[in-house]
């Protein structure tokens, strides 16, 4: 009896091991690891944008997960309030735009928290990521003081009752929008009053009427994320937008005048004499004596 039960338990254990081995053999890989990346930025029109990338794989084999469902939630004290669910594109990217006046719940430190969650599927693990941000506002004023162009930026937080709290020590990059990119002119820091100023140079090129698009940017701040603000102002120099060149040149469409005149003179001189010679010979025919 005892040997019987021993044999039974051994058989059971062996079978369990075999089945486990079969399972792990057939399904050689474990569930793949996934990683969520989240970016918060505030756009020029005060809308906020949350960009999410879901990647799988390691090292050089990192690729985006296509068509994955990401659930976005905001955390209000202990509750989780579902915002929406997003689907990633072929690169594993997706984004949500949040209108400017949407009010996020704020925790004790003033942060709003957004959580992105991917539930995983049969082959991929689930992933979760949170970002915290505080809504920082920028107000830009452009004035000319003593014929010096000045850019003044006021950085402040607005709390729930509407009081403005100036923020010190914010690093702002100020630049102008160019065709392919943004040319940053300077980096300024806000003072205790939350104000940063910069002198705008006089030699920045604008468009045909002298307009430039001023870009004020906070780059990836720990608390405030990335904030962009743009203002159009007539502080640039005027560029000639004329596309017709009436210049005569060797490489232009129209030849220099002296060239045209020389060619006409030479050709007409030669052909004039040629025509005279032809007329002389034609006259010979006329002088033919009919037999």
């Amino acid at each position, binding site marked *: 009896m005892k040997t019987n039960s021993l044999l039974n338990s051994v058989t059971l254990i062996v079978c369990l091991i075999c089945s486990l081995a079969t399972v792990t053999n057939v399904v050689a890989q474990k569930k793949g690891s996934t990683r969520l990346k989240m970016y918060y930025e505030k756009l020029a029109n005060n809308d906020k944008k949350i960009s999410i990338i879901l990647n799988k794989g390691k090292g050089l084999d990192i690729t985006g997960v296509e068509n994955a469902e990401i659930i976005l939630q905001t955390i209000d004290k202990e509750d989780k309030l579902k915002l929406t669910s997003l689907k990633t594109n072929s690169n594993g990217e997706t984004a949500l735009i949040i209108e400017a006046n949407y009010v996020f719940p704020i925790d004790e430190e003033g942060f709003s928290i957004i959580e992105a969650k991917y539930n995983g599927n049969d082959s991929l693990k689930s992933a979760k990521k949170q970002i915290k941000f505080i809504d920082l506002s920028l107000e830009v004023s452009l004035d000319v003081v003593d014929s010096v162009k000045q850019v003044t930026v006021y950085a402040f937080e607005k709390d729930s009752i509407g009081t403005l709290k100036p923020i010190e020590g914010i690093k702002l990059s100020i630049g102008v929008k160019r065709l392919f990119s943004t040319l940053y002119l300077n980096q300024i820091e806000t003072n205790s009053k939350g104000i940063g100023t910069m002198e705008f140079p006089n030699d920045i090129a604008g468009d045909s009427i002298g307009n430039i698009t001023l870009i004020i940017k906070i780059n990836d701040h720990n608390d405030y994320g990335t904030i962009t603000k743009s203002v159009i102002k007539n502080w640039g120099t005027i560029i000639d937008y004329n596309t017709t060149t009436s210049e005569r040149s*060797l*490489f232009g*469409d129209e*030849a*220099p005048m002296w*060239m*045209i005149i020389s*060619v006409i003179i*030479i*050709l007409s001189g*030669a*052909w004039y*004499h*040629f025509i*005279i*010679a*032809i007329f*002389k*010979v034609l*006259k*010979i*025919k*006329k*002088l*033919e*004596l009919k037999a």
Partner: protein
Amino acid sequence: MNPNFEVKELLEQNRYFIEKPSKQWILKVVILAIILGIGLYALVLQVIKGHTITGMRDNVVWGVYIVNFVFILGLSYAGALLAGIFHLGRVEWAKPLQRILKLITVFALIIGPFYILLCLGRPERLLNLFIYPRIQSPIIWDVTAIVTDLIFCIVYMYFTYIKDFAMLRDITENSEIYTWRNKMYKFLAFGYQDIPEQRKLLNQALDIMAAIIIPTTIIAYSLLAWLFGMNLKVGWHSSIFGPFFVLSAVYSGVALLILIMWIYRKKQKLEKVFTDNHFLYLGFSLLVLSLFYGYFYFSDYITDWYNMQKTYTLLWEKYFDFSQYGFPFVISIFLVAFLPSIVIGIPWFRSVNSIALTAVLSLVGLWMMRYLMIVPVLETPYLPIQDIRENWVHYSATWIEWSLTIAGIALFALFFVFVGKLAPIIPISEMLEKEEPEKLDSYDSKDPNLVTST
């Protein structure tokens, strides 16, 4: 030195052109046609397969075709230039050569531009040259010059034939066998009956044509020279190119003239027309021209050599490197600058046959000099060619290009063979004309010879 031949005697010597084509003539035509046919086959291949079957690639974009073009055009302009100078200068001994010169001019001018068409990537778009011309471009200058010159030269050549056509018309007037020829000559003679006033008009027209042909050809060939001279490429960007090309052209023209003269003298037994003296005079001209050529070339080299700039060094190295262009360079310099002095300068070597041989070798040498002027320069751009493909670094012409070159020569010869059947190769009427004292002022109304029309 203008022996007064009887018309009949001259025509006796030239009977071949009136008679039916002989077996020899047909054989000549057939052989030349075969060579031409091979060339046409090569042409068709090139049209179908594109330029990849030639040797031209991204650095040497101009190969044998452009060499041929420049060379043949040089012959043409030289022919016209010499014809014009001999005519205006009333050079008596050169009278029998006039027709050959004009034929060279016209035939070469017809064949030359074909090589440009072969070099074009899109010859079907040739009309763009006339719809969208840019007169700042040396090619447009060249095209204008060629078109103008072609028209002038054909008309000039026709004018010089009028007197002979009139003579032939008169000779075949009452013949029963030459009826269609008679009709043809009647049409071509344009009513010329050697009435004094007609003669005067024709002579004036010939004078005018000769006078405008000379500057036209010089300018035209200079424009072609500047196509290279104005190019920034090392070896081309030189101020000597204008005069150098004109000289080179005249040199090649004289050499070709000697060659053709020799062929006719031998084939048609025209020793009394193309006399030993003709060979002597032209031979001496060839010698002088070869010395001039040597002087121009040496002048170009030594100016570059004394303080040689970097890329020039790379170029000149190629000419003296016997694994690259050394042999062709030495051979062609010898043929062009030294051989005529030796063969024609030293009386012991001098003879009609040796002069003709020198002329042929000079032509070959001149062609090689043209090749050396174009291809190694294109192989030496400012930026080094760091390419592993051999045929993108060095140009080597394919059989297509060589066969088309030879086909061009065959076509040239074929033209001469055919034109020989139309009229004699020597301007008989002109040679029969007595030398008349010419008035400086041709509009003297008191001239008793002047016949005014009623």
